[in-house]
């Protein structure tokens, strides 16, 4: 696809749709995304599946009489676009008026970010297939007990985002990301255990097949022979992957939308200690190589680097244009869209716990007995409103500062706030899994049910 031509074509199209809605007395915003995707799946060195795709869609938001309406379409023919405008306006008539409904006005400029690595598109498919094969070979070579490939895949996406509103914003950007992952199974006697490795980012050259394959294999092999431990209280260490799982529960509670609606466990806590002093939590929409980086958010507001928790103290919440108007503050550029099919809600970009100063080994070395958690199950059942969680866990048992034997089938439970307060060490190994990142963290004491 010729992205420059496409960008011009879609800027015109978005402007036309906005005009159609504005002509009927509404203020309006059209958001278009379009792109190409590739995915490659390999098993036993064979290409099991290869998917190539193109897609496009337009989402139209209108505000008339302080009421918001929304409609979307993947069909860009004139009758389909007219119907989309009609539906958005009709939907607005059904909504409740709210004086804070508004669209942002033009910004003087956006951050200059390097979001398009040409190597992602110039690398031939055959080379990408070879990269996936190499991941699988590396996993198998790591240990003879790695016998089954659950999945081994690469995917990339190149896309264009266009945003036009009736308040003067006309903006576009073009980006690409790529990544690879593997899930492999180690088998010994009657037992099977799974492990994964993955890497996602904006640079093709940063996808290291050897690292992904060996990581997956190591995670699977070390779980062979896992057993339960008895119910007890002990220190718990989350590896970076598990820590990001917990961050995923915290994210919605830091959205101003949840706070304003009384649905956040952080409501009324700005300026207070909500975590141990070793904890800093950041949202950065401009982070280099960040998979969620972009010059502007889903409503055309420049992205920012926002410190949410500093030395354990809650500094602020994340805002989109609506929540900012309601609180009388500036949007933090967190008007996030899942896709063209959704209105811009408050959401995180590149969201992470800042690295601390200890190595993971130092963190483990100080523990007389505890659990090093490498996998949690049922994290989506944690309640971001109450903060209560109870999840299945597996990992490695720590005895006298050493990782001793694998553990599975246990559960850990508690409340997010007491968990954040209980963190007593943060590692220097900040690792991103997609758009969420964390280092190793240690919690002084938790209930482990077995």
């Amino acid at each position, binding site marked *: 696809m010729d992205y420059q031509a496409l960008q011009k074509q879609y800027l015109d199209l978005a402007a036309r749709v906005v005009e159609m809605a504005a002509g009927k007395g509404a203020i309006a915003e059209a958001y278009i995304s379009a792109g190409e995707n590739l995915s490659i799946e390999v098993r036993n060195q*064979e290409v*099991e*599946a*290869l*998917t*190539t*795709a193109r*897609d496009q*869609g337009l989402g139209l938001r209108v505000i008339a009489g302080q009421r*918001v*309406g*929304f*409609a*979307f*379409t*993947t069909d860009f023919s004139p009758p*389909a676009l007219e119907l*989309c405008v009609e*539906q*958005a306006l009709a*939907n607005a008539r*059904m*909504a*409740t008026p709210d004086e804070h409904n508004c669209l942002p006005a033009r910004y003087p400029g956006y951050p200059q970010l390097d979001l398009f690595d040409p190597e992602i598109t110039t690398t031939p498919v055959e080379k990408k297939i070879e990269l996936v094969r190499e991941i699988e070979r590396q996993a198998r070579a790591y240990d003879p007990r790695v016998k*089954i*490939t*659950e999945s081994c895949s690469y995917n990339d996406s190149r896309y264009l985002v266009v945003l036009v509103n009736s308040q003067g914003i006309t903006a576009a950007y073009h980006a690409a990301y790529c990544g690879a992952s593997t899930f492999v*199974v180690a*088998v010994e006697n009657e*037992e*099977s*255990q*799974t492990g994964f490795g993955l890497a996602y980012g904006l640079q093709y050259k940063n996808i290291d097949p050897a690292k992904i394959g060996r990581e997956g294999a190591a995670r699977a092999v070390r779980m062979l022979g896992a057993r339960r431990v008895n*119910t*007890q*209280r002990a220190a718990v260490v989350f590896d970076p992957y598990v820590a990001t799982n917990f961050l995923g529960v915290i994210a919605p509670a830091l959205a101003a939308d949840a706070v304003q609606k*009384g*649905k956040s466990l952080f409501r009324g806590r700005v300026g207070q200690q909500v975590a141990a002093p070793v904890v800093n939590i950041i949202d950065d929409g401009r982070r280099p190589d960040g998979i969620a980086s972009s010059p502007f958010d889903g409503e055309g507001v420049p992205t920012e680097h926002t410190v949410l928790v500093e030395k354990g103290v809650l500094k602020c919440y994340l805002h989109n244009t609506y929540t900012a108007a309601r609180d009388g503050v500036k949007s933090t550029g967190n008007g996030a869209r899942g896709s063209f*099919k*959704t*209105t811009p809600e408050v959401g995180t970009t590149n969201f992470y716990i800042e690295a601390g100063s200890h190595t993971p080994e130092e963190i483990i070395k100080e523990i007389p007995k505890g659990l090093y958690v490498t996998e949690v*199950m*049922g994290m*989506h*059942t944690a*309640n971001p*409103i109450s903060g*209560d969680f*109870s*999840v*299945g866990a597996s990992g490695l048992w720590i005895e006298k500062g050493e990782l001793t034997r694998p553990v*599975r*089938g*246990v*559960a850990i*439970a*508690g409340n997010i706030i007491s968990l954040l307060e209980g963190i007593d060490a943060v590692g220097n190994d900040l690792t991103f899994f997609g758009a969420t990142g964390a280092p190793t963290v240690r919690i002084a004491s938790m*209930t482990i*049910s*077995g």
Partner: protein
Amino acid sequence: MLLTEADLKAILEAALAEGGDFAEIFLERRRTTSISCEDNKIERVISGLDQGAGIRVIAGENTAYGYSNDLSRESLIQTATLVGKALQSRPQPREISFKRPQAQVEFTIKKRPDQVPVAEKVALVQRANEAARAVDKRITQVTVGYGDVIQEVTIANSDGILVDDERVRCRFVVNAVATDGKVIQTGFESAGGHQGWELFESVNPEEKARQAARRAVMMLEARPAPAGKMPVVMAGEAGGTMIHEACGHGLEADLVQKQLSVYAGKKGQKVASDLITVIDDPTIPGKYGSYRFDDEGTPGQKTVLIENGILKDYMYDYLTARKENRRSTGNGRRESYQDRPIPRMTNTFIAPGKDDPEAILRETKYGLLVKRMGGGQVNTTNGDFVFDVAEGYLIQDGKIGPAVRGATLTGNGPEVLKIIDRVGSDLGFSLGTCGKDGQGVPVGDAQPTIRIPEMVVGGILDEEDKG
């Protein structure tokens, strides 16, 4: 029908012109409405149209797939050619003649949701919001959501299958938040089915909203769940998450064939207690996981997976069935035209047994009673699973004791199925969106009241309360 038969034929022929032994096109036109109310305001009213086509070509064990939003004949022929080329196999041109398979069931939609004015849908959402808020002063937030989908599909393949179908689904959800000082708790209820607006003849949205609100308020007073092993009674009304996780996923043929399931190679073997029969059935009218045809054009059908403890069959799609030279069980599903079909559950349940549900509770001295399950997850490779308890009580001397919150039950599928010692004569359905390989599809789950003599409850040890 979204394209003519001649167009479909031309596209399939283009797909096979460059190689492959099977080609398929899945055309979809999905129109949706969604409404949400929060903060006493109708915040979002959204209508949408998402249409596209997915083209799949298979050569031996290799699959190439492509999709596009452009439904013009030329564009689809171009996509088909590209997809076929990706396989790099020998072309096997052939004559395609279409025949339309017969569905095993017919579903009648009494009132299509696009025939219902949006204002009427909005009014229903508002009534539910008010009903939930009226339950208790401590209800501080209520979110009500309504959504409907009309999905038209045309599925055609080089074996000559041609299916046009329309799936109509409505869904309604309520989430209530109760606050008392620093304590904040939630309650959730949902309803939905392969039904039109008639869903609300059998479901009273206000009553659902009150149930969600009452649960949130009750949870304010609940104590943290205990930790450790204990007997668990699951009420029929608790829903079917347990069976979905404990064995459903492990009986999907793709996982079995890849040796990623603890149930691999166990057909004909005893895998559960004699009391356990597990069925997957998309032909039950009106349930959330129901359909006439799966997303590959195979008629939906009832499949007995486990019968009196013996593993009878797995759930197959076209590709997994072909590998074993057998027929698909009609479980090939996909989230949308953007996805390849894979074996999935539909409505999955443990068949009712003979025990009186009340007697099961009465004859359990102590343990945990699960009245409502939340979400769950399974590691199919080792069979370990978890699910969340949305409403639970301690069992004290065969009676319902105090409510507990924050519990997750952890178990191992094959171990739990073998030790279930009581199966009630009731059956309660729940619904949800099941995720696998990044694809979400609507499913129903159900089970009777059952007792599991020992499961791990992931709660909190008492000392945490003290400090």
